[in-house]
Every structure is written in C-alpha cells, then in structure tokens.
C-alpha cells in the first residue's frame, strides 16, 4: 500500500481494496464483493445510527465496487445524506457518489437539488465549487430546471471568487449543452462576454469555452467577443514567456487560452474592422514566425504546446480563407511537418492539409507536396498515418494529377491494411469516375480495383461501372473487350464475373465479330465460371444467357440445353430454378420479335448522385467530408476559374453538394410497371440495378404469374427493411423509413415473453392479434389485423398510395423476417391475416418493429408496434438428470457466463403460476434437481442459425422477503444477460 495518507485515510477502504487485489480469481473477487455488499447493506439497515465517517467509508466502498463494473442498487440515500454533512470530506464523497451514479429516481433528485441549493447559497467557495461540479457532472434536465437561472447569477456577480466563476462558467456550458432551451443568456450576455477581459487567466480560459459554445449557437449575440478575443490573443502572443507566470506552459504562453481564443474566432468571418483585422493578422503571423524559431526547450511538452497553437492558428487561417499569403505560409509550414521526425506532427500535417486542399488559394500549393504524400503512403509504419495520407491524396486530386493519384492508390491497395481497403476502393472509384476524361481509363481502373481487392469492392462500385458503361456508347465496345480479356484469367473474382456477365450480356455483340471472341466462346467463358459462383451471381449469369439468345441466335441451342439440364431446372434454389424454367420457356415460345423487344438493350440510367459517394459519406460520418463538399471551390481554381463546376451530365453524376439523396432518389424503373426489375444484392435501396432483361408488356403474360419476390433490404446501418413485391407490379421500394421511425412505438405486453398467442395491440379502429409457433431457430407468426369499424381500410399496410400492397418491418440484422403479400383493403368488421416467417440468425436483443399505415376515412393512420419475438422463443427444452445438471452448471462457471438478478416479486408468488411461466418461457422444468424443493430449475438450448447455446437457469423464491433470485448460466454472455432480463420481468 502506498504511503500517501494525506487528509483522511479510510483504513477499512484500503483493506477492502487490498483484499480485492489479492483475489486470485474473478469468482473470489465476486465472493468478496458480495460479502462486502451484504455487510454494508446490514450496516445501512441496522438500527444503530451510523456516524458520518462510517457512512462515508461505506459509500466510498460502494463507489469502488461500482467502478469495478458491478451493479449497485442501494446506498443512494446514504450518499444524499452525506451531502448535507457539514464535514467537507463527507460532503465531497457524497457528491462524488452522486456524480458517478446518476440516479433518475425523482424523490432523490429533489433531495440532491436541495442539498446543492444550500451549498450554492452557503457563500463558502469550496462548498459552492463542489455543488457546481456536481451540476456539471450530472447535467441532467432536472438540474438544469433547478439551476439554469441561478448559475449565471453566480458567474457574473461581482463578489464571486475566481475559482467559483470558473466552475460556474463550465457548469453553465454543460447545462447549455444538455438543455439549451432552459439556459437563457439574454440579460447576462454582455457581462459574460466581458469576462474575456478578466484579470485572472483561469477565469478567461473557462469563460472562453462557454462563449465559444454560445457563439456557435447564436453568433449575432456574441459578436462583440471578437474584438475582445483578438485583443486578448494579441497580448498573449506578444508577451514574454515569463510574463504569465504559471500560465506559461513549458515556455509557451497560455497555450490553452490561446487555442480557445483561436477557436472562438473560428465562429466568425474575418473581422470587418480594419484595425482589428490587422491586429489579428499580426497575431497569426507572429505565431507562424515563432514556429521557425529554435525551440526554447527540448521537452516534447514544449513543442506540443507550441504546435498546438500553431495548428489552431492554421485552422483559423483556413477558416477565414481570405488571406492568400497566410494560406500559402500555412501550407509551407505543414509541408515542413510532413517530413518531421515526430509521427504525431506528420499525422496532423496530413490532416490539416486536407482542409487546405479545398481552398482555392492554397490548392495548388498543397499539390506541390504530392510526392511527399505518396511517399508517406508507401513508407509510414503507422496505419493511422497512412490513412491520413490516403485522405489527403483524395482531397488534393484534380484533373491534372488524377491519373497519378489513382495509380498510386491502386498500387497501394495491394498491400494496404485490411481495415482501410474498402475506403480506398470507394475513393479510387469516385476519383476515377470524376476525373475520367477517357472512359476506357475508368473501365480499366475499376477492373483493376476488382482484381486487386475484389473482396472490398462493394456492390455500389460495380453497379456504378455498369451504369456508366450503359450510359456511354463510346466505351461499350472497349468494356466488352476488356472484361472478356479479364475473364480469361483462371481465377477471377466473383465481382468480375458479375460485371463480365452483365456487360457481355448487353454488349457481347460488339466484339463477336472477332473469331477469338465469337458468341460461343463468350458463352463458354462465362459458363466456365458459373459453378464457382454464389446464387445471386448465377442468377445474373442466367439472365445474361437469355440475353445471349437474343443477341446470338446461333447459340440458342447450346444455351437452351444448359437451361434444360437438371442442375438448373431442378435446382434446389427457387430463384435459380424459376429463372431457368422461365427463360427456357420464353426462349422456346416467343417469336424473334418478341424476344428482341423483351430482351432489348437496357435504357440509359437517369443521372443521379453516385451511390459510391453516398456510401463513403456514410462510412466517414460528418466532419470528414469537406474535401467533397468543397469540390466546387476547388474545381474553380483547378481550371483557372473558366469551367463551372461539373457542367456536363457525366460529372454531374456525382451530384456534389447535395445531401445523401440516393437512398430516396426515384428509382429508374418507375417508368412503367412493365420493367422487370431484379435485385441481386441486398442493397436495392442504395442502388437498384436492373437486370439485362427488359420485359415488355407481352412478356407479362409469361411472367406475371404468382411469384412473389421478397427482397431484404439494408437501410443504412439502422436495420433491415422488409418489403413485399409481386412481379405483377414491380416497383422499387421507396424506403422513407425515417418518417416511420418517428412514430410512437408501442411496446409489446410482457406476457408475450411466455405466451405465443393473444391480442398484441388495440385501439378504436384496429386490433392486432397474434398466433405464433416456433421450432428451433425458425418461427412462423400469424398476424391478424381486425378492422373494428364498419368502414373499409384502404391502402392497408403500405405507407404510400402505391398500387400494390405491403407493410413493413424494421428488424435487426440478427433476425430474418419474411412476409407474404396481403390484401390492400380490409373490409369493415373483417380480419386480414398476414404470415411472417422468422429465422433467428444469432442472438439478439431488439425486437422487430411492425409498422402499419392505412387510410381510414380520409386520413392516414400510423401504428408501430414491437413484435414479441424475443430470444427465448428459440428455446428448445432439454430434460436432464440432477447429476447432468450440476455437471453442466459447473462447466458454465466462468463469471461472464453467469448473470444473476435479485428482484422484488411483482405478482403473488404462486408455485404453479411460476412453473407455467418457466415452461412458457421455453425451458424444460426439471423436478427434483435442486435440493431445495421450493427452488425452480430449468434447462434448454437456444437455437440460432449460427450457433446453439445451452442454457441453465435457477430461480430461488424467498416468500418471506417477497424476493426472487434468478441465475442464468449459458455459454454466451449476451444470451445469459438477455434471458435474465426477459425472465426476471415475469415474476
């Protein structure tokens, strides 16, 4: 134990911590903790009143236990009591406990607020600080309500101590972040701004943080802070390094305050007042000059602090984007850092240069560093630095250097870290498209992408190359020739087969004149890959084959033979079988004319924003997009201001500056209901690709039978969206899910955890009933929508007035839910039945959400309910003997495998009801296993597609205390936790 015992030593606490550290195993630790918890609980419950010291000690122990990662469900009251102690240490521990274990318990909150109020008005600065720290640490809405008016008063009062002012400023900042509506600065604004002039640099530092946040929200109100901030900054920058005493950090004058002031100035455009503007430019120049001076200390702290100010100054220069000389100087400075021996500086230089690259003044200057950046990409040892180099190359790319940059990124891709490959692929694809003057180069680039990093080429990328080839006549022949050559390789990536199948199916005729790529050779080449491919690719190839029949009548016989073979016509996969049957039939009965109409070349795709860009944006999140968003600005300079940004439709594909609209953009197939649209990928919403088959009205007779096709759609990363379409009326789903997400969500009644049938939801109009059955990892749920009114529900299900019907579900990735199509109307008093097929892929927590929309009378009605599909539905009971049970119980002894909960009974503790609930939960109830007959023991296996998880459970009722203890042990911690959460709600 360390020798420190300043202030108070809490011996008991130190002993306890030592004990925990001496525990040899997790079990021993848990045992020791449980012992301590029992001890503390009995002390708190005991009749003997505890003295303040003991209370403090026990509360501190509880805090320690909580910080170790254990749940604490008592002691809050004792901690609150400590708040009103007049002993400082007790109060301090009380506040710490409250700050760490925020409890939303409302009666406690009012007690806490009371204590805080007392301390705030105590005029004792130490107590006031404690109270302000607590408000800032908790920052809850209730606290904002109670103190949003009081804290500003403390902040600006003339007699407030400096340290209290600092706490008050940051406390107010925190409240403003959590509840901006409650923090009204109005009357205080001028006095808060005036704090920038305060004598005490600590106060200025804290106030600057506050003002910056407020200024970001309402810049107009805090405009006067600009001149004060410039004045303050100027004084700091020009001060000798010793002037500021302890605010000088390793020979750098007030680096924190400097950086904060520079950040505050970034909320505003360059000052209009010439004098202020001149003074600021002077400051920035001084900061840039200082970077060239020899260091005053060899310590890394010195250079870090100095460079922190420098980087912040450069950020401001870039933000103003108005002083060419400063911008170029900044760029040169960063150029020096690119080759600095400190990795941190190289990283930051690359990062800052990314933003500089988007300024028209400095874009050219940034470009001069291209060789250094490429070198960084090749030689940096740290992947996060290489990642920044990729970002910078992307940002500095324009027409003049695109070929070089794309080539470098491509060659880097071969050795790139797996973690960043996908992003590089996306970036290369975007640059290649954007700066392609010559589309043969574009096609080559994308094929190289597939060759070097096929696994990382997402669907968007290969969709895009097809879209572009289809829209551009001049490249079609070249594309056909190139994919044909690429497919010659003995092992080629499946994505190449997809692109190859699509392009040859459309444009194979353009190279068929060459005897080396005759129709039959093309077909044989494609078909040689067929057996190595996954189902979606095979489906695509079958579509390519039917296109071949149209393009090359001479290979019809060969292809029909392939389609007719058992491996196609009787393929186990429904989709493949169906295509084979239909294509075979189509090729035999349709006349050449009809075939030519049905299978004509794909029409051009409408221009729209590249889905790749949208994907990159999604991947990177906000804040990293400036290179893209500032493209227009950059284009201007790159082209000497002559070319307006993206004037041609070809570059307009990127739709820069627009938001991520692809998700909701109108689908190309909506030109008519007769276009046969196919979905190979799960990502239909992000980028719908049409198959090479354009089915005309005539073909409808052949196709529009009874096949319903159910695509599963990823929508962003939020969840899966299941829609229903039938081929009679194929249209793209327009997934305006965000609208639906705003609906109030009705949770399912908890009885459904142990029951499969019943009424799930009811309002005046609608009743939703359920019947469900589950076996292993599969389930089927019958959902009954009962119309309680006497009027018909129109457009039932689908949230749009589309001619077809569907309703949809939002589910997590761990569940597959498929629905069969239903009738779009429900007559008054009638019932509609919907069948859902459910497959559990892996263990899950979130239940799927059923969204329903229908028109009743003139108005649209929305309902969203959670479906009671819970993990325990996939339980299969397992009978076992007492011996088996305890053997397995011991095997599952690792601490993370066990989850235990102690809770109060919510219902009467009836043995039979409990038994029924455990069986309803899905586990086998094992009699005579537990030596104590009043305990319940159960066992079962959770089935998911990927794994099976054995589960054991034990429920110990304590009728006297009206409590239960529930213990779950399973081989997977998430399963233990989920089952315990679910089951404990039942009693």
């Amino acid at each position, binding site marked *: 134990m360390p020798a*420190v015992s*300043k202030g108070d030593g809490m011996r008991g606490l130190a002993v306890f911590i030592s004990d925990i550290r001496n525990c040899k195993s997790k079990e021993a630790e848990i045992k020791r903790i449980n012992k301590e918890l029992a001890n503390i609980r009995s002390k708190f419950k005991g009749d003997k009143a505890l003295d303040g010291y003991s209370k403090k000690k026990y509360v501190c122990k509880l805090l320690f236990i909580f910080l170790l990662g254990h749940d604490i469900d008592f002691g809050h009251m004792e901690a609150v009591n400590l708040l009103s102690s007049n002993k400082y240490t007790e109060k301090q521990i009380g506040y710490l406990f409250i700050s760490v274990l925020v409890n939303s318990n409302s009666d406690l909150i009012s007690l806490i607020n009371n204590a805080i109020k007392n301390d705030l008005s105590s005029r004792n600065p130490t107590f006031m600080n404690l109270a302000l720290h607590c408000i800032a640490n908790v920052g809850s809405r209730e606290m904002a309500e109670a103190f949003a008016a009081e804290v500003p008063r403390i902040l600006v009062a003339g007699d407030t101590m400096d340290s209290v002012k*600092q*706490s008050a400023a940051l406390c107010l900042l925190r409240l403003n972040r959590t509840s901006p509506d409650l923090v009204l600065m109005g009357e205080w604004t001028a006095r808060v701004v005036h704090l920038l002039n305060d004598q005490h640099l600590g106060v200025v*530092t*804290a106030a600057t*943080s506050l003002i910056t946040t407020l200024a970001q929200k309402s810049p107009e109100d805090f405009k006067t802070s600009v001149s004060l901030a410039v004045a303050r900054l100027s004084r700091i920058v020009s001060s000798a390094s010793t002037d500021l005493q302890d605010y000088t950090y390793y020979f750098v004058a007030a680096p924190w305050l400097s950086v904060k002031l520079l950040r505050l100035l970034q909320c505003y455009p360059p000052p209009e007042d010439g004098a202020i503007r001149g003074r600021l430019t002077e400051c920035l120049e001084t900061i840039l000059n200082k970077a060239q001076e020899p260091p005053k200390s060899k310590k890394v702290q010195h250079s870090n602090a100095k460079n922190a100010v420098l980087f912040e100054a450069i950020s401001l220069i870039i933000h103003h984007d108005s002083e060419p000389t400063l911008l170029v100087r900044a760029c040169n400075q960063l150029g020096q850092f690119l080759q600095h021996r400190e990795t941190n500086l190289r990283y930051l230089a690359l990062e800052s240069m990314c933003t500089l690259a988007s300024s028209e003044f400095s874009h050219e200057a940034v470009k001069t560093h291209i060789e250094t950046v490429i070198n960084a990409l090749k030689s940096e040892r740290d992947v996060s630095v290489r990642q920044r180099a990729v970002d910078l190359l992307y940002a500095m790319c324009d027409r003049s250097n695109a070929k070089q940059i794309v080539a470098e990124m491509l060659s880097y891709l071969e050795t790139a870290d797996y973690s960043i490959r996908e992003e590089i692929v996306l970036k290369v694809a975007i640059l290649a498209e954007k700066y392609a003057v010559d589309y043969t180069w574009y096609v080559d680039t994308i094929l190289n992408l597939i060759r070097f990093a096929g696994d990382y080429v997402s669907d968007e990328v290969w969709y895009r190359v097809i879209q572009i080839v289809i829209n551009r006549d001049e490249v079609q022949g070249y594309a056909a020739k190139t994919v044909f050559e690429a497919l010659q390789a003995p092992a080629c990536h499946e994505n190449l087969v997809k692109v190859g199948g699509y392009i040859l199916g459309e444009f194979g005729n353009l190279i068929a004149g060459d005897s080396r790529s005759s129709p039959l050779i093309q077909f044989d080449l494609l078909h040689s890959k067929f057996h190595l491919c996954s189902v979606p690719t095979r489906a695509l190839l079958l579509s390519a084959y039917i296109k071949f029949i149209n393009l090359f009548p001479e290979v019809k016989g060969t292809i029909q033979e392939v389609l007719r073979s058992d491996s196609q016509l009787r393929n186990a996969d429904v989709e493949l079988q169906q295509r084979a049957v239909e294509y075979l039939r189509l090729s035999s009965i349709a006349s050449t004319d009809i075939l030519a109409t049905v299978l004509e070349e794909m029409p051009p795709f409408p221009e729209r924003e590249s889905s790749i860009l949208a994907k990159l944006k999604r991947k990177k999140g906000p804040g990293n997009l400036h290179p893209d968003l500032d493209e227009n600005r950059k284009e201007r300079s790159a082209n000497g201001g002559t070319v307006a940004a993206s004037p041609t439709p070809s570059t307009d594909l990127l739709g820069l500056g627009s938001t991520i609209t692809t998700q909701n953009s109108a689908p190309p197939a909506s030109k008519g209901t007769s276009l046969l649209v196919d979905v190979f990928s799960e990502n239909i919403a992000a980028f719908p690709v049409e198959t090479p088959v354009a089915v005309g009205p005539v073909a409808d007779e052949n196709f529009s039978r009874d096949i319903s096709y159910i695509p599963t759609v990823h929508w962003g990363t939020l969840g899966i969206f299941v829609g229903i379409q039938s081929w009679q009326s194929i249209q793209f789903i327009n997934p305006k899910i965000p609208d639906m997400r705003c609906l109030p969500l009705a949770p399912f009644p908890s009885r459904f955890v142990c029951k499969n049938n019943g009424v799930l939801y009811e309002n005046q109009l609608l009743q939703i009933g359920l019947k469900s059955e589950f076996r292993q990892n599969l389930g089927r749920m019958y959902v009954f929508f009962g119309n309680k009114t006497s009027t018909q529900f129109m457009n039932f299900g689908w949230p749009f007035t589309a001619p077809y019907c569907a309703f949809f579900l939002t589910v997590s990735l761990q569940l597959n839910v498929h629905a069969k199509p239903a009738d779009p109307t429900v007559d008054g008093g009638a019932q509609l039945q919907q069948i859902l097929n459910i497959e559990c892929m892996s263990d899950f927590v979130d239940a799927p959400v059923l969204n329903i929309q229908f028109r009743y009378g003139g108005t649209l009605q929305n309902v969203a309910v959670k479906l009671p599909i819970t993990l325990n539905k996939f339980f299969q009971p397992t009978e076992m003997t007492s011996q088996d049970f305890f053997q397995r119980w011991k095997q599952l002894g690792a601490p993370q495998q066990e989850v235990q909960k102690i809770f109060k009974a919510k219902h009467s503790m009836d043995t039979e009801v409990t038994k029924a609930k455990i069986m309803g939960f899905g586990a086998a109830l094992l009699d005579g296993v537990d030596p104590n007959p009043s305990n319940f023991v159960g066992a079962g296996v959770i089935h998911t597609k990927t794994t099976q998880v054995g589960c054991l459970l034990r429920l110990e009722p304590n009728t006297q205390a009206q409590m239960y203890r529930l213990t779950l042990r399973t081989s997977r911690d998430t399963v233990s936790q989920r089952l315990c959460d679910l089951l404990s709600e039942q009693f």
Partner: protein
Amino acid sequence: MMHFLLLFSRQGKLRLQKWFTPIPEREKKKIVRDMTTMVLGRKPRSCNFLHWKDLKIVYKKYASLYFCCGLDAEENELLALEVLHRYVELLDKYFGNVCELDIIFNFEKAYFILDEFLLGGEVQETSKQVVSRSIEASDMLQEVSERPRSR
C-alpha cells in the same frame, strides 16, 4: 469538448473513468472495451491519435498506465496530449512520484483532482499552482474536520 477520459493498465484493467456526456452504462462498457483493445493493440512509437467513429482519440502511456481520451472532431489533438500530461503532473505533485497503486487506492482523490482541472469536458484551470493549491486547501479542511475524531 472531451467526451471521456479513461485510465487503464497494460492488462486492460480500468483504473479511472470519467464521462463528460450522458452515456448509458452498457454503451460505456462497450467504449471501454473498444478503447482498451484498440489502444493496447497499437505498436510502440505509433502516433498518439486515432479516429474512432466521429471522435478523435488521443492517448499516451505513462509507465504502466494508459491515459486515453475521446474528443470532438474540431478539438486540438496536441493540446489534448498536454491535458493528459498536465493531469499526470497534478497527480504527481499530489502523490509525489505517482504510480498506478496510488490511483487504485486513492481513486477518490484522483477524481477530485480531475474535477479541479477539467469540468464538463473543458479545461477549467490550467495553472498547476492554482489547482494544487485548491486541492491542498481542501485537504487542510479535511484535517481540521478530522481532528476531533482522531483524538
């Protein structure tokens, strides 16, 4: 602003956690797991900065302890490194040659010192003297109020 500050050992044991934004406990555990695996998996002499989701992660190792914080995208990484360093200096000044054990056994003190230095995810007081003085002052208060007890 700073979103969180974590101190953990080479073995991934969490020694101190401070959250400046409201985050559910489960999410906290996930962040801690992500941070420890990510930071402990870094090669020596790599740079001290990472991107993680929308946050900038800045970390530094002091003896056996890793100090790691998550920042908003517009924050200054180098200065955040010095925030970590200043905190180490403050701990050092208080404990005198601080070591991991000091923080384990006096965790409450480590939190008190942090509260004097950072508040709401922003730097409150950068002067080492001022922070140390206010910690000492409260320690004095403790001794005064403790005296009657230790008669």
